[in-house]
Every structure is written in structure tokens, then in C-alpha cells.
């Protein structure tokens, strides 16, 4: 990748920005390989949350006093930052949510539920997270619609032709992960969106795992809904967003009722605020979004090309090293990936390895990763998953692989 040459991330300096990375676990320096689960937070995020509570804690969009003005500015500022970060045409198309799960459920209940009829179909893929399966199953149960599944290959790539073939007139919505949380596969969303748009089928993209690694640009992706979460993007938990085209949001009825989302309330009837506030009933996670705004600013201050180059080098290093270990089975060897590697080791249970590695200071996830259908596809109950971020190092990969070799002998 020539365009990445000359872009070098100063990882040692970056690591200093993340206080937690300096801690030890069971007396060993922490190796944090679980960023796809939740990412660690840079000091600027922690400080922003702290400063909000110390200096301008107030409710948003209600108070006319100075504190309220400052809190509202910071909270709405996060919406502006998210809009810019995602390349959204308008800030009013960004609905702030508690995360991806709430964002997808908002589409399920407010957009899909009133529209779908018996015989209609929702198309997903084998590699979806439960958050992009279960809401649609609930909609199907209540409307008589059916869930269809576009298959993946053994390499863990979406079979695009099969996805396109499945876009029959019965399909009223397609819902696809931008990046697989288990396999790391980057799906060709722009290509899929061209196919769905040609057929007039709305496309929802689950961007949870993409936003921390890729430069997301909604203008070029061409999808109709984009759901993301803040805590994997180095921001606080309980933050996230749904982006949808303005005309779609305008046609969606409210999901939650309460304060903030109204224009006028009378007992004879209530008129609702315009999007996005129509969907933001109640006092939101103000401190969380103040922190998420700080996280987006922080990422904006990094050289993104250098970050991508570093992550690609980490992925290659980790993949090549693990592939060379006898008895290791890798899951997901797509051509385009983020640094997420799922694997199993012959004769050793995923949970035992995860606990033993934890004792070595290495944090990674074992289990089904909220993706039962994908586990069923590969015929395994669980995998181990090492998920890296730009703050990880090559030296950590070496420590991880050495520790894996040691703990394996215990279970042999």
C-alpha cells in the first residue's frame, strides 16, 4: 500500500494516552486484546467526563441557565462531531442512542414493524451479531415476515452473488455488518448498497466494529441506516448513534415517549419534535456523549493513514504467527480484515485457554461472541478471539504467542 508509506504511528506515545494500558494483571503487564469487546479510553475522554461532572453538570435542552447552556453545547457538540466523523450529510440525521443495539431496535420497532406484512422478508448474513438478528426475529414474529440469511464462504467472506440473488421483491430490508465482530471481515458495503438501491431495498449497516478501524464515509457507502456504538470507539459505554436519511427519519414514528421528544403535549394529543430529538425521549447520557465527543476529537488528532498501516501490520503479524503454530485453527481469513483474529487450539477448550492466558496478563475473549449462527456455521461452540486496536504492539503479539505455547502444555 504505497499511499501508507511514510505514515508511522508512534505507538509508545499513543499508549501513554491510555492510562489503563499501564496496569498489571496477576503481576504481569497487561496485554489487552479485547478491544472489539470494548476499547480502552484515552485520558482526554476520562477527563472530559470528569470535567462535565465537576464543572458543567446540568440537564440538556431544558435549562436556560449558564450550566445548561454549556452542557447542551457539549452534548449537541457530540452530535456534530459524530456527523462529521461518519460523513453524514446533516447533523439532524444523527439520532443519539445508548449504542448499536438500541439503534437497530429503533429501526426495528419504528421503521420495520409498521411496514412489514406477512410474506415480506428481511435479509441478513450468517456473520451477524445477535444485535442484528434478534430485533428482526422479533419483528418477523409480530408481522409474519420472514428472516432470510445470505451465506458466507469458509474463508469468512460474504458471498456477494448470493446476497444479490436473495434481493427478491419480497425483501423489504437488508441488514449487514460493516465488519464482523468474530472474523474481522470487512464487508463490501458500497457494492451491496448499489445492489439494494437499484432494487429500492433499504440497507441497514451495523457499524459497531467498523468505526474504530475504518474511515467511515456515509456519502460514499450509500446505505440507508448506519448504527454504531461509542464504547468500541474509545468513548464511554452507553453511547451510540443511528444515522438514517432525513426522509426516512421523518416518516418514522417515535419509539420511546417522554420529555425532550415533544413539540406540544395536550391530553387530547401530542405533537412530536422533528428528528433527531423525536427519538431521544428522556434525559440522555450527557456525560457519555461529552466523552464520546472527546474520543472523536482524539481520533481526529491521529494520523489515520498511520493508524491503518499499523493495524494492518499487527494483523499480518498475528495471523502469520498463529498460522505457524501447530494445532491452531483460524476462523476467518478474508482478504479485507480489521485486526480481529478468531481461533481454536486442538485439545484445549477456549475458556480454559482464556483463563490461563488471563493469568499471564493477556486479556482476550472466549465464547460465542454473540454470534451463535456463525458458530453453528463453523461447527464449533466457541472460539478464542484476539481483537487489537492501534494501541497494541508487535511485542505484545510475541508475548501472547509465547504465553499461548506455555499454557497449552498445561492442558496437554
Amino acid at each position: 500500500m504505497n499511499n501508507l508509506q511514510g505514515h508511522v504511528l508512534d505507538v509508545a506515545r499513543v499508549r501513554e494516552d491510555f492510562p489503563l494500558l499501564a496496569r498489571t494483571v496477576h503481576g504481569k503487564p497487561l496485554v489487552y486484546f479485547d478491544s472489539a469487546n470494548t476499547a480502552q479510553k484515552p485520558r482526554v475522554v476520562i477527563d472530559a467526563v470528569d470535567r462535565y461532572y465537576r464543572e458543567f453538570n446540568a440537564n440538556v435542552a431544558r435549562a436556560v441557565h449558564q450550566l445548561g447552556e454549556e452542557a447542551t453545547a457539549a452534548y449537541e457538540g457530540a452530535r456534530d462531531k459524530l456527523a462529521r466523523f461518519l460523513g453524514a450529510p446533516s447533523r439532524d440525521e444523527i439520532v443519539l442512542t445508548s449504542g448499536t443495539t438500541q439503534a437497530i431496535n429503533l429501526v426495528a420497532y419504528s421503521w420495520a414493524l409498521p411496514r412489514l406484512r406477512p410474506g415480506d422478508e428481511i435479509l441478513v448474513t450468517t456473520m451477524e451479531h445477535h444485535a442484528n438478528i434478534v430485533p428482526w426475529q422479533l419483528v418477523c414474529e409480530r408481522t409474519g415476515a420472514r428472516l432470510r440469511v445470505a451465506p458466507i464462504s469458509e474463508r469468512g467472506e460474504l458471498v456477494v452473488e448470493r446476497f444479490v440473488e436473495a434481493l427478491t421483491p419480497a425483501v423489504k430490508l437488508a441488514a449487514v455488518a460493516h465488519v464482523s465482530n468474530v472474523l474481522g471481515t470487512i464487508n463490501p458495503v458500497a457494492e451491496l448498497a448499489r445492489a439494494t438501491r437499484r432494487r429500492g431495498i433499504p440497507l441497514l449497516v451495523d457499524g459497531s466494529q467498523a468505526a474504530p478501524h475504518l474511515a467511515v464515509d456515509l456519502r460514499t457507502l450509500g446505505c440507508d441506516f448506519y448504527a454504531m456504538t461509542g464504547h468500541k470507539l474509545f468513548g464511554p459505554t452507553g453511547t451510540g448513534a443511528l444515522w438514517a436519511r432525513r426522509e426516512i427519519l421523518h416518516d418514522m414514528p417515535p419509539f420511546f415517549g417522554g420529555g425532550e421528544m415533544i413539540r406540544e403535549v395536550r391530553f387530547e394529543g401530542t405533537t412530536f419534535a422533528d428528528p433527531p430529538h423525536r427519538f431521544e425521549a428522556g434525559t440522555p447520557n450527557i456525560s457519555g456523549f461529552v466523552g464520546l465527543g472527546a474520543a472523536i476529537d482524539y481520533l481526529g488528532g491521529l494520523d489515520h493513514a498511520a493508524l491503518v498501516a499499523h493495524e494492518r501490520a499487527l494483523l499480518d503479524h498475528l495471523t502469520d504467527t498463529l498460522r505457524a503454530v501447530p494445532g491452531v485453527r483460524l476462523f476467518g481469513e478474508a482478504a479485507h480484515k480489521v485486526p480481529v483474529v478468531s481461533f481454536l487450539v486442538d485439545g484445549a477448550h477456549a475458556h480454559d485457554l482464556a483463563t490461563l492466558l488471563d493469568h499471564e496478563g493477556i486479556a482476550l475473549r472466549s465464547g460465542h461472541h454473540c454470534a451463535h449462527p456463525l458458530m453453528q456455521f463453523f461447527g464449533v461452540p466457541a472460539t478464542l478471539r484476539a481483537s487489537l486496536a492501534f494501541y497494541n504492539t508487535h511485542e505484545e503479539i510475541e508475548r501472547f504467542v509465547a504465553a499461548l505455547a506455555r499454557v497449552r502444555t498445561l492442558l496437554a
Partner: protein
Amino acid sequence: MDDAGPLYPQLVLEHRRNPRNRGRLDACTHAADGVNPLCGDRLRIELRCVDGRIAELRHSGEACAVTVATASMLGELVEGLDAAAVEVLGGRFAAYIEGRGDAAGLEALAAMAGLQQHPARRKCALLPWATLRAALAGSTAATTETEIRMHARTAIAPFAFRAATDADVEAVVDLVQSAYRGEGSKQGWTTEADMLDGRRTDAAGVAALLAAPHSKVLLAESADGLLACAHVERQGDAAYFGMFSVRPRLQGGGIGRAVLAEAERIAREEWACREMQMTVISIRDELIAWYERRGYRRTGQYKPFPYGDERFGIPKRDDLRFELLVKAL
């Protein structure tokens, strides 16, 4: 590496490497499949109970070291115990791994102390207990979430096998009659009410079976009384299986399978028989299919139905005959 952390002391790793009582039982009185939804691990526990006590336990299935080691240690601990004693130990183990109690009476399972610091892995150790309790309760499936999920049509209390004596004749006649004749038998699927009226057997018939040499009437019994019975008799190299009856409302819960397996065990182990034989009314396709799923095969050899001998009932149709089924032991 000597120090593998608190969850994996040498004893746990050793039990994981060489699990005791691993495998399956040929003839079990109780069995249950347990699932830990956290990781998808599965564990099967099979028991042979005698007089309400665990005589043999086997565990099988794919699971992590914590689950396998716990099952291995638990198997050694509960041998000879009844359901109530297992309940007490299970409660004590759960309290122990949560740091709420000591390891008194838990023997090797004291090595699971590391779970006090690993709450995320406690379910791995509770899976064998949940599965054992489900098996003893007569359920066939368990998870660590709901403890016991009933899959059986009817819950069956723990039961045990014994051989019938003269004192049991009346109860046996009633049971056989209830399983095959009259409206009550239609609650189960072994009914012959639409084919036959009259008796299936009588007190003299049962007493004769008890008096015969190499002949046993096997009873499965719980605190509620007689649940099932069967007659098994040695005839040279083969054994003959008959008078097989399960209380109609308990049918479909796995108790019949256990009775058949116990009869096969007696024939094979006590009498060294090489084959089990039985005769089934040839038009009872679903019953023949049930035996075929348990390894029996049709022979195409038929015996006439004893028309005119009312000891076997009063036929409602004239096309009844018996087919011989056999299984190598």
C-alpha cells in the same frame, strides 16, 4: 510453568487429563443432558441407581477443564448416595465456590476453590451438578440457567430396580392391565384397547413366571409405587423379554428405555445370554419401530395369536399374529 493460577491447581489439571467415570453406561436408570449456554458446553450424565442410591455414574461430552474435572470429582463423591444427599452436597458446593461456606464433605472438590475468584467460570462447575440433579429428578435435560428444564412428557421421580416377589403379584397384574387394556390404557401409546378386550394377564400367570427357573419379573419403583415392569427369562443362549408395561401417564419419559436396558443387562451379565428375543403383535408398527430404534430387528418369523385362549385377551379382529424380534447382546 508451575503456577497456572487459582483455577487450575495440579489436582484439577490431573482430573481433566484423566477423568474418572468418563464414558457411557450400557444400562442406566437415569440420564440427563446438561448445557451451559455461556459457552455451549454439553455434558451427559448417566446413572445406574439401586434402591434409590447411585451405584454407577458416567459422564461424557465436550466441555472445559473446570466442567470435566468437577464431573470427575463429583462422580467419586456421590457414589452410594441418594437424591437427598446429593442435594445437600450440591448446595454445599455452590456455597463453597461462592465463598459462603467451607469444603466439609466435598473431598477432592475442595480443589475448585479458585472459582471463588472466578465468578465468570462458576457455571462451568455447576453444570455437572445441575445435570446430575436433573437426572435424579427424572428429567432428561438441564441447563445452568434454569437448573432443570423438563423435556420429558411427565416428570418421573427417581426410581430403582428390583425383582418382584409373590407379594407383588397383584400390583403387577394391575400395572400390565392398565398399560394394555381399557380406556385408561389410551393415555399411553402401548394400548391394545382397540385390538383386544379381556385380560392381558392374571395373578396365576404372573405367579407362574415368578416360580419358573431363570425367570425374573423386573420392577421399576419410586416412592410413588410401581412405575414399570417386564418379564425376562433365560431360554438357553437367549433371553426372552415380555410383559413389558409402563404406567400409561409416564410413557414417553424414558423409563421404558431404562427397563429394557436393565433387562438386557441382566440377560448379558447375569445369564451370559447372547441374544434377546421378544414377540410383538405384528400390526403394531409404532411399537416395532420403537424396538428397532433400540437395536432390535424383525425376523419375519411369525407365531399365531392364541385365538380361543382368553388368558391373552378377547381379540376384536381376526388378523392378529406375533412377530419375533431379536437383538444380539
